[in-house]
């Protein structure tokens, strides 16, 4: 019988190397998959990982697009990482992302056509607030009734999606949208539009906020008492009590921060790249952010890199689709392999496989 035995002290070097090993393993397994599908695996891997960054024809466009695509993922993943470190499992970032977009975007639609420099700051605050309040529902239920935050936050994703659908088929439907359940386009509303800061780069205000959050997140985690508190809460609830950590405060803070950041991500996305609220607005970023958080080792700098890597697989995946006719499903399998190998390698870093007789195992 094979069994897993905890390593007394996982190698620090291996912990840091895990994502790289996982990426290499994904390339190999993905390459085999592409070969079975009749594609040249080396070209496919080159198109996915190399061309978006360095191809003469497309890279000048795709490089900034990596940041645009990665921004909501990184914003949400950093928020989630605090909770995951403290054993507070917010699985519903997708719902908080939607609510941020609906509350912030809805505020903008309500103010239309008022042009004022205050509109954009206001909707940013409303977006963050929308996500924050949505995350407070599982937080309060957890604190008050000890309800499982995984289930509550996940279920609220579907509630948020239905709320969005009700809004865009009703009060937020565009008067000029030909009956489509789509809001007014935010690029028609100068004061609320999350425009490109430099033309043809795609870089918007949310990208700057994301970079700020990476830095602040890093300081919080490594230099601030809050970072210490969430780490100790995750390692041992009992020890954290002795250290003076109030577990209720930890739950509220972790869910609140991740909710607010998800709300901000939703607001920046809807007023910028997406451009409008519609039932097609949620694309699963909130779930992908969970992968990004773990791929980045729950560390802000790691998450920054992981988010960019994830964006690379999306954008490179599109290139591979139309240059090599690789089906979209194969690209998704490829992305799924990334998490699979990460978790697999993770287990081997923390545990070792032992042959053991059945008797001994008992």
């Amino acid at each position, binding site marked *: 019988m094979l069994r897993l035995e905890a390593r007394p002290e996982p190698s620090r070097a291996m912990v840091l190397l895990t994502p790289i090993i996982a990426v290499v393993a994904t390339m190999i397994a993905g390459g085999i998959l592409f070969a079975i599908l009749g594609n040249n695996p080396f070209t496919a891997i080159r198109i996915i990982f190399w061309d978006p960054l360095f191809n003469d024809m497309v890279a000048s466009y795709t490089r900034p697009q990596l940041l645009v695509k990665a921004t909501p993922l990184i914003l949400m993943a950093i928020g989630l990482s605090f909770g995951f470190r403290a054993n507070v499992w917010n699985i519903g970032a997708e719902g908080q992302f939607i609510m941020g977009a609906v509350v912030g975007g809805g505020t903008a639609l309500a103010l239309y056509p008022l042009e004022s420099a205050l509109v954009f700051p206001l909707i940013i605050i409303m977006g963050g607030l929308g996500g924050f309040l949505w995350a407070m529902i599982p937080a309060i239920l957890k604190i008050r009734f000890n309800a499982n935050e995984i289930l509550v936050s996940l279920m609220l994703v579907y509630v948020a999606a239905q709320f969005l659908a009700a809004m865009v088929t009703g009060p937020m439907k565009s008067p000029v949208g030909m009956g489509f359940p789509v809001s007014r386009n935010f690029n028609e509303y100068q004061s609320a539009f999350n425009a490109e800061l430099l033309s043809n780069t795609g870089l918007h205000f949310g990208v700057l906020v994301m970079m700020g959050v990476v830095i602040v997140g890093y300081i919080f985690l490594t230099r601030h008492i809050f970072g210490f508190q969430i780490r100790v809460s995750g390692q041992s609830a009992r020890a954290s009590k002795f250290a003076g950590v109030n577990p209720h405060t930890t739950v509220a803070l972790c869910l609140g921060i991740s909710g607010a950041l998800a709300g901000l991500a939703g607001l920046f996305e809807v007023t910028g*790249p997406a451009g409008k609220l519609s039932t097609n607005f949620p694309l699963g970023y909130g779930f992908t952010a969970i992968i990004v958080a773990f791929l980045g080792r729950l560390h802000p700098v790691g998450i920054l890199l992981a988010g960019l890597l994830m964006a690379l697989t999306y954008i490179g995946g599109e290139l591979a689709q139309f240059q090599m006719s690789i089906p979209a499903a194969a690209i998704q399998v490829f992305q799924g392999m990334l998490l699979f190998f990460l978790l697999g390698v993770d287990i081997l870093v923390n545990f070792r496989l032992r042959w053991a007789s059945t008797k001994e195992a008992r």
Partner: protein
Amino acid sequence: MNLIKTLLAGAAVATGLAGAAFAEEKLKVGFIYIGPPGDMGWTYEHDQGRKAIVEALGDKVETTYVENVPESADSERVMTQMALSGHKLIFATSFNYMDHVMNVAKKFPDVKFEHATGFKRADNVSTYSARFYEGRAVIGHIAGHMTKTNTIGYIASYPIPEVIRGINSAYLAAKAVNPEVKFKVVWAYTWFDPGKEADAANALIEQGADVIMQHTDSTAPMSEMKKHEGIIGFGQASDMGQFAPNPRVSSIIDNWAPYYVERTQAMLDGTWESTDTWHGIKEGMVEIGEMTEAIPAEVRASAQELADKLASGEVHAFTGPINKQDGSAWLAEGETADDGTLAGMSFYVEGIEAEIPN
């Protein structure tokens, strides 16, 4: 062994391939699809059109596509990547790509865009669509004859003119042969979601519908109909012939192939111009799929006659007298609808007992 060979061969050429692929002088034609070509409906027919280009123009062209492109910033990015990598003609095959097509077209004046079912054009953006409502009239005619419960179910996608026009056209044709007929409409708010479409089909069957029409792209409603005795439906966008002779008794087929070949040929000839195309049964963009034995012979004959008359222009699917749902007059006796009104149709005709979601 084959795998190893592929891997080795791949390693050998991978390094040198980058430049070579772009060096050829082929016209690159790109497609973005809302669903997968395997939907056997809407996207399938667009992909058939793409294949027809390859067949007709061979090595003068190279076609590429990306499937499952959301109607979001992602579509803008995919089209931009296509334009940057040398595509000169790009087909965007869903309505809500519209603003994104316009944005990309502005940045690439040398690249031509073809946007299906849209209404925004530019010097390098053409729009095209088919008069699906002519096909709706033919299957409405069949449905009116075939229903025993006098209840026809309709799985609708979004309450846009395109869909509302189809419901009206089918209703008028059904009512003309069966004054007792009633329509039940379920809004799925999706073009392609097999789960939701199947639910909608079941809901309609439970409400007594024995004929079901769909304006969504998957074959899921067909699979549901197949589970029930005596329920029939029609292939949508594609023939869906795998469900013949029952529950699929006929179909409306979107045949994009001639248009796609013609437009690509125009690019090769240097004669491409921005146009707005709206073709019907006459031009072959709308086809009626084979009517199966499940339909009585005389109904097959009368349906075919209607299709022929729609093609020749002898009959128009919207011929007065027709009132709007609220009872107000729309078309006088013998008057036919003009294209402008049809293109923006946002009302039901008299007799439909449903409301357009608002």
